[in-house]
Every structure is written in C-alpha cells, then in structure tokens.
C-alpha cells in the first residue's frame, strides 16, 4: 500500500517537476543533426535510403496526389524570391534551393503535449519518439506540427507497397505500421538501439559517428551530420558551437551575424534539433 501511494506521489512530483522544467528528463544524450544546404544537391538519395531503412510504404499516384504520401524525409525545391528590382522570372538564374525536411525532433515539441495517449513523447536521448502500437490515431500531433512532417497511415499499405517477395526486404528492426497509426522520422532509432547495445557490451560510451542515420550514411555530398549534442567532442556539437546556435533559445545571440547556422521556425520556440546551414549565393 505504502509503496503504491509512494509511487503515485513520486510519479506526480516527477510529473510536475518535469512540467516546470519543460516537460523533459535528465537527458542521457541529445541527438541532433546538421544539414548543410549549400552541399545538399537535392538528389533524393537520403529520401530513398529512408524508404529502404524504415519500411516506408509507397502509396501510388492517387494517394500521393491526395497528399497521403509517407515520405519521412522529403526534399522540397524552392526558387529564390526576387531581389529588389529583379524580375520574378529571372530568379532561376541563381539555380534552385533544396530543403531536406524531416522531423526536427523539437525539444519543445508541439506534438508531444497534445497526444491523448502519450504515444509521442521525448526520450532521454532527446528524441521525439513515436510509439506506433500506442497510437490511437487522433492525429492531433500532426495538426500541431508546424513542419508537417508527421505522416498518418490513412490506409493499410502492406499489400500494395510490398507485394511478395518484397516483404522480405522489410527491416525487422522496425514494425510495419498498419492503418490508423501516425509515423515519422525517428532519427533511425533502431541504429541508436544497436549502437547502444554494442557499446554496452564493450563497456564504453557510444562514440561519435558510431550511429549514422540512413540519410546521413548515403548522402553523396556528406551534407548531413548526426550526433550527440551533449558530447562536446562530437562533430555535431562542434558545428552547433561554431555556428553559435544554442538549444532552448528562440532568438540566437550571435556575436557574428554572418554565421550560416539557423533553425527553421525558431520564432515558434519549438526548439528544433536540426541545424540548417544557409545556402550560399554568388551575388
């Protein structure tokens, strides 16, 4: 009895304490990413690698046209907005810009508090996790995501996306999501899990670079960096530091405004963990 009550009280105090401090735990890791938009060529390799790694279903033309596609990592293409005095039609002479857009793993994620069953939450690794089998499909999280990177299984895709023998290619480290479930980029959490296991077996900490996300691993220009922000030696930590971008700020205090690092929708104070480096333009 006493332990039950104790559990409840402890749980409650953890809960309120967590809420006061941003709703999160003591982080063990803080996985984050850096994407150099000047190196990104928009070639789609990352996106296809993601399909292969994470059992993403292809939906076909009709559903894609209905905007029900399941691409966790989508490459958006924009043309620059015209400079003052420049004709709109001429902006293509500076080329296009590509934006790889996937779950930004916000530290103050708008999706997390609204999930009625806590199927999406923040892990001690600093990831925004989605527990598929807990999801009941209220889709509130997707509505509240400013990046529109949460994808809902509007249909069962098993038979159309993986006709036999294609199901043999499915990654057994990830479940195949059924209809009615929300899914999104996990920063390849199965690779994190495997690396943690190896590190534990060898009795050491996870090394920087030991975990590579599928998109990072395949990126032909190496535009993507992934690693632990809490590890001060990690390349990602160095890059964030070099670009003077800090977590937990909605306006960065840069001593050098010419640094390229920025986060998308920083002003919403969602505290994303993907640092984008600005595209460079020859003027």
């Amino acid at each position: 009895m006493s332990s039950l009550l104790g559990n409840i009280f402890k749980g409650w105090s953890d809960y309120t304490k967590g809420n006061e401090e941003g709703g999160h735990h003591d982080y063990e890791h803080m996985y984050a990413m850096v994407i150099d938009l000047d190196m990104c060529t928009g070639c789609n390799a990352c996106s296809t690698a993601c399909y292969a790694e994470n059992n993403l279903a292809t939906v076909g033309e009709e559903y894609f046209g209905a905007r029900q596609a399941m691409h966790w990592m989508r490459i958006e293409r924009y043309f620059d907005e015209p400079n003052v005095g420049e004709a709109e039609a001429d902006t293509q002479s500076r080329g296009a810009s590509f934006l790889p857009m996937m779950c930004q793993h916000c530290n103050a994620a708008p999706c997390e508090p609204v999930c009625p069953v806590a199927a999406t939450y923040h892990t001690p690794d600093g990831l925004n996790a989605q527990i598929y089998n807990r999801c009941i499909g209220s889709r509130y999280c997707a509505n509240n995501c400013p990046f529109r990177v949460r994808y809902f299984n509007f249909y069962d895709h098993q038979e159309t996306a993986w006709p036999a023998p294609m199901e043999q290619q499915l990654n057994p480290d990830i479940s195949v999501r059924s209809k009615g479930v929300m899914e999104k980029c996990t920063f390849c959490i199965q690779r994190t899990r495997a690396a943690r296991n190896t590190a534990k077996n060898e009795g050491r900490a996870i090394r920087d670079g030991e975990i590579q996300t599928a998109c990072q691993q395949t990126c032909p220009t190496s535009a993507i960096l992934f690693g632990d922000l809490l590890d001060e030696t990690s390349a990602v930590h160095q890059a964030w530091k070099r670009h003077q971008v800090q977590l937990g700020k909605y306006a960065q205090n840069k001593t050098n405004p010419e640094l390229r690092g920025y986060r998308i929708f920083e002003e919403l104070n969602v505290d994303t963990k993907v640092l984008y480096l600005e595209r460079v333009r020859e003027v």
Partner: protein
Amino acid sequence: MSKTKINRRNFLKVLGLGGAGAALAGCDMPSTVTLEEGEEKIYSYLAPEEYVIPGVGVWYASTCLQCPAACGTHGRVREGRVLKLEGNPDSAVNAGKLCQMGQAALQAHFNPDRITAPLINGQPASWDDALALINEKASGGNVAWMTGTVSGHQRVLLDAHLAATGKGHHYAVETVNARAWTDAGKTVLGDAMPTLHLDKAKAVLSLGADLLGTWISPVTFMGQYGKFRAAPRGVLIMVEPAMSLTGANADQWVAAKPGTEAAVALGVGHLLMTKHGLSLNGMPNATSAFQSMTPAQVHEIAGVSEAALNKIADTLVSHSPSLVIANASHAAARIAMVLNIMLGNVGKTLTPGASIAADPLAPMMGSSKDLAEFAQNAAAGKIDAVFISGANPAFVAPQGLDMAAALKAVGFKVAIATCHDETTKACDVVLPLSSALEDWGTHVPAYGGKPGVVHLQQPLMEPLHADTRGLGDILLTLGKSAGVDGLDAFEDYYGYLRTAVSAMIGSELEGDWHRVLQAGQFETRAASRAFSAGHDVALGFSETAVSGLHLVTVARQGLYDGRHANSSWLQEAPDQISKAVWDSWAEIHPKTAASLNLKDGDYVRLTTASGAITTRVFIYKGVHPNAVCVPMGRGHTDYGRWANNGVNPLTIVDAHLGDWQSSEIIATASLVKIDAAGENRHLVRLMDTDQQYGRKLVATIPAQQFGRTQGGA
C-alpha cells in the same frame, strides 16, 4: 558468402527467427492480447556458418549495377535476406555513399515482376530446352550481342563467345552516355576518360553535362562537389536548355537555346581571348573558331545575353584553376576541352585518366550510336541472331529507327533479363537472369576508381528464384557450347571468377580471396596514361535548328533511361526538379505557355517529325522558352506493375538528326509542335509552390560572407 553447404531453400526459409518474417502483422494487434502459442513457424538452420547468427545483420561487399558507374556497395544481410544497401567506404568511386538508384537496387532484386523461368516464345520452358534451342539457332552466322555498359570478366567471356561464334558484333547501348565527352577527350587530349578534379577547381563550367545527376559517375562527382562547396567555395556555372540537377545547384544557370551550348562555349572562348588576353598556342583552327564567334552572335544564336557571357568568362579567369566540361554535343565537348587547354586547367583539374592494364576487362562504354547501327544492320538482314542483356532497345529507340521491324528482321533473339520489358516481349527465348544482388562478377568502374582497382560483385543472398542464373554463368555455358577454349575446366562462373581473380592478385590463398570478398574490390596492375599535346581539331557549331520549339529529352537520376521505372521507390521519389511523381510531364517556360495559352496540368500533344506523344504540361521557369523538356524513363508498356505510366519521349526523338561528327542520337534537336489536347488534370507533385512565402525555410547568404565566416569565428 562463399559457397555454403546450406540447402538453398532452407537458407531462405529461416525467416521466423526474430519476428522478421512476421513483420507484416504490424501493430494492429492490441498489446493487451498475448500472442497465441504455436501460431508461427520457425525453421532452424541445418548447419549454418559460424558467422550466421539469426537476428544479427552481417555486411557483405558487392558492386552496384544500377548505372554504368559501378559503385561499391555493402549489403546488410540478416536471416539470409538482404535488407539494405550502403556505399562501400573503401571504394574510391563512391566512398561509402550511394545515390537513390543504388538504394533502389533492393527493389530491382525483390521485384515482384521478376522472370522466374526460361521462356521459349513466351511459354515456360526448361533451361535445357532453352539452351538447346540457342545452340541450334545461334551457333553460327552473324551472332550479335547487345548489352549496356559491360566490363570485367563478363566482358571477357562475352568477347570470347563472340569470337567463337563468328563474325558477330557487340553493340553496347546506353541512351544516357558520355560519348561526346569521351570522343572529344580522345580527339583533343588523347585520353577518352581524363580524371576531373572538381574538388580542386574553383570554378566549373558545365555545358549540358549533368554531373550531379546522371553523367558518367554521379556519386563520385557529388562527393567531389561536397568538397568543391567548402571554403574557398567554387563557383558552378551551368549552360543548358532545361534545368538539370546540376543546373539547380549552379550559381549561375544559363538557359541556352536547345543545341546551342557549343555556340556559348565559343563565345566564352572569344571573350577569354579578346577580353582577358588568353591565347591558344599552336592551335590556329581553334583560335579562328573562337575569334569568329562574337558575343553578339552568341546572343543571336543561343539567346544568352552578353552580360551573362561576360560573367562566365570573368568567373573562369578570376577563379583559377577552373574546369570546363560538356556533354551537350560533340562540338561542345571539343570546345570544352580546348577551353581547358586555354585556361590552363590541363594538368591541374584535368589529369590523365587511370585504368587497369588488363584491357579486355576495361568497360565497354555504351552509346546510342550502337543502337542506330544495330537497327540499320538488323533491318538490312545482317544479323542472324542476337543476345540482348542489360539493354532495352525496344524502349529506348526512337520511332525513326523502327526497332520493332529491325528486331523482327533478326532471325533469333535471346533476351537475358531479370524482368519482362518491351524487348523480352519481342524475343524468342528469354533466359531468367539473377539479380545484381545474387550474382558474381567483376566490374571496372569507367571512372573515379583508384587506378587498377576492380570491383567485385558477390551475391548478397541466395537466388530468390531457384531457376534464375547469373550472367557470368550463362556466358560460361554459352561459351562452352560455342567451344571457347579453356572454359571446360570451370564448373561454374564462381570457379572461373575465382581462378581469374586469383591470377590477377597473384595469390591462390583462401585468405586472400576472402580479403577480396571482404573489401569488395582488389587492386591489379594499373595502366598509366598521359595526355598528348592538344590536337588542333576543327571546332565549330552546326546550326541544326536554332529557332522554333525543340524537344529536349533528359534523364534524371531516378528512373534514368527507364530501366528503373519498375521501382515504386523511384516512381514515388519526386523528380528532383519538377517534384512530380508517377507520371510524365512536359516542362515549358511561362512565356511559351502564355503564348500557347496553356495552363498547368493541360494535356498537350507534342508532335515531332517522328511521331507524337500526349502528356501534361508543367509550367515553370527552369527551362528555355524555346525548349519543351520531357524527362525520359516513363511510358513503358510491358515493364511490370509500377512502370506503365507516363509517356516515353525517346520514341519521338528525331533519330536522323545525328550529332555533328558522330552518329549519336541527340536529344535536343527535334523540332516539336504543341497542341492542346483538351483535358486538364493536376500534375501530382510533392509541392505546388516554388515560394517560401516569407518563411525562412531555405535561407541564403552571400558568398563574400561565407568566405569570411567559414573558417570559424
């Protein structure tokens, strides 16, 4: 994975362990329900190798055959199934990276539309019957081979087979090729495949060479591009009629009228001479060609403004060393080579290529010239029998070549293919080929590898379908029955390859062989090449047709020339530029659209001298107003469940408009007429906007600032 004692069927059956095979049950199951005991089956191994552990993935090295670049791969194998491909970090070609086509090799392998048994006239047959028929019909006379790019020991066996059967010819067909560049290299510098150093160049001018997309070895170039973009940042200039992936990443994208890149290049050369005082010693022909093309003329011919031309010339001079590459036409490629000489890039960013000493293994690079020649020879009845593998002439041939009639004129046709396509339908015998992930082979990268390095292709899993055979095995069988000397000693291609590789690495030791398997590549003697002094070739620009609307067919990384169309991943991966999926479209400039009164999604009929196709328009500004760009790859009629969508623009390319000084079919020269076809349906795209609406999504920074801050701060 050397030959194991494991029974093949059981090796495949070991799925239940680890819940792998049952992943499909997904998470539909309420977790309050405990799974019933005894509902699933587990097959245990009989006698597994020690390293085979259920639930643990093992990585095997192999080679990617999705395009002629031959990147090294690592495949993750678990429970006997290959699950994921990654680049082989040891390979100098791709340095651990892969493009989307490489990733999608899995889908080519697990494709539900694979051919599983030999077919004779469309009816399933046994291998013995099929081979007997082949022996009967294709043992003498003019037996030809048609392949894509082929290299390594497959090429050796193929050549041997050809030699043994008589006077046949080997047609290597690649619609997407670098023939213009290689020919120009051979003519001007004496080296068909010089090494490019993008990472050392401070400026790159590309004349229609989509080096980030499909040109020669895109992953190599993208790897170099990453370094090229680091500080001090290189400047990329692209001249082309319709924006390619390279154009989209260029700092200066210059829209030239279709087929006029050579004129632009001449204009740049003119400015370099007159404005910047560069000269070409000992090349009077070239000098006069440059001098005769003034910027004003370029503006008239190519529609490129003098300001843009000046900017190109200024950049090339101020950012030295630079690099000029071209693939638009033979003329443009030659001029590019000469520009490199003039700019002093030779020896700095353009060095002699590296290859292997064993010439029979060197890649036989494909071209569309071979396609045309095949059509002519076949139609003329000069070919008695043909083996087709890795090429789809019935799909890529323009209507003008009348490939259907040409194939009909060939008495006996054998297709060696993994999937049905338009060509296998026309063949008498179809031999089921193992997929690239089930097969043995050696491949010499056409470009980008370390000198003397041969990539090894090893099976990543047991054949998915028991009755398929590898290309090497088929060639060996054919060679044996054709009486090629020395093949009888080998039971299968694996044995042949192992012997051959052992000879090349000079070691018969088991351990050395395993090291080769592990690395996925081995080094052999490299041939050193050198440039000859610049040949003073004739430079010129042939004004085929510079006015009017031109059809521009381009290949995009993804469906490529159409060979990857039956991959749902690649069909659903939005086209890099238009962001369209699952269907064809015709890119036209807003001005053109306005003059023709077309809206986005309107269906139009594109008519050339060779035929007509109907597709919908996509209006955007990344295309020259004189060009109608239709990416190739779609429009299959018999290529599996995912491929039969869109239209095939290659069919209406005017085949008789050969490139200047070559008979390559050029993709930009056909005049086209656009008629509205009435219907309008929204083109399915990833996004319907080009604009960021003031959201700071892709932010930009001027290059000067980048130069100041990249070092640190």
